[in-house]
């Protein structure tokens, strides 16, 4: 079954992250690079992507004529998706184990960041009764 592992954060958390010392950011990049390579080599990685910072996010709604209405103002509490992994796992427990590895990625001073990772199955297709 496919699972998605999501990293999210508020704008304040993104700004805090951007203020980490260079060597701490470097250590985190290196951890992620090795982690991704390990997931890929073991055949569990389906996809991984990082998103641009929240200041580039826009909310789009259809206007009356269907034209896009965009808005770039968000509540401070809004959690933005920072990036995700899609993995193929035999059980939810295996997906949680991999998420815990990501959660333990090094933060400032090399301490585990313990960031929360949301885990959910990915649907392969809408249920047949909906088609």
């Amino acid at each position, binding site marked *: 079954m496919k699972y*998605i*592992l*999501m990293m999210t954060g508020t704008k304040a958390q993104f700004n805090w992250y951007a203020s980490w010392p260079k060597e701490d950011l470097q250590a985190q990049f290196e951890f992620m*690079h090795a982690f*991704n*390579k390990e997931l*890929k080599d073991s055949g569990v*990685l389906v*996809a*991984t*992507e*990082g*998103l*641009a910072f*929240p200041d*580039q*996010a*826009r*909310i*789009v*709604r*259809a*206007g009356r004529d*269907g*034209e*896009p*209405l*965009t808005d770039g103002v968000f509540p401070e*509490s*809004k*959690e*933005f*998706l920072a*990036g995700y992994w*899609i993995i193929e796992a035999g059980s*939810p*427990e295996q997906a*949680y*184990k991999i*998420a*815990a*590895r990501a*959660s*333990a990625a090094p933060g400032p001073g090399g301490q*585990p960041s*313990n*960031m*929360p*990772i*949301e*885990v*959910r*199955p*990915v*649907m392969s*297709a*809408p249920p047949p*009764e*909906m*088609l």
Partner: protein
Amino acid sequence: MKYILLMTGTKAGVDTCRAWSPSDVQAHFKFLMRLNKELSESGELVANEPLAAPDEARVVRAGKDGTPVTDGVFPESKEFLLGYWMVDVESPERAYQIAARLSAGPGPGGVPTNMPIEVRQMMSRKTDEPA
């Protein structure tokens, strides 16, 4: 340029969708299938994934010894990712147009839902990175 179009909703919002009549649900999925087909044919669709319902979501953190600590209790205000579309388009305006199409998808009685779609650019990836 790659953009991600994020469809989000609270648990209450998802429950509202579950109360739609079968014909309304069917019309919405048919609309999405047509839009996906159109975006595949134009070569703009990179990936599309629907996620399982919020009640299957868990937040995972690394415990002291690195083992996963899971939690399935969320604030009512939490916005869950319901699904995403990744598109490869020439401009942000084109990404916003596609998002407006999604926002105009039919809801109960065929009336456009006008749901908000968050649009953000993907971070470019170095070619030596895995996946």
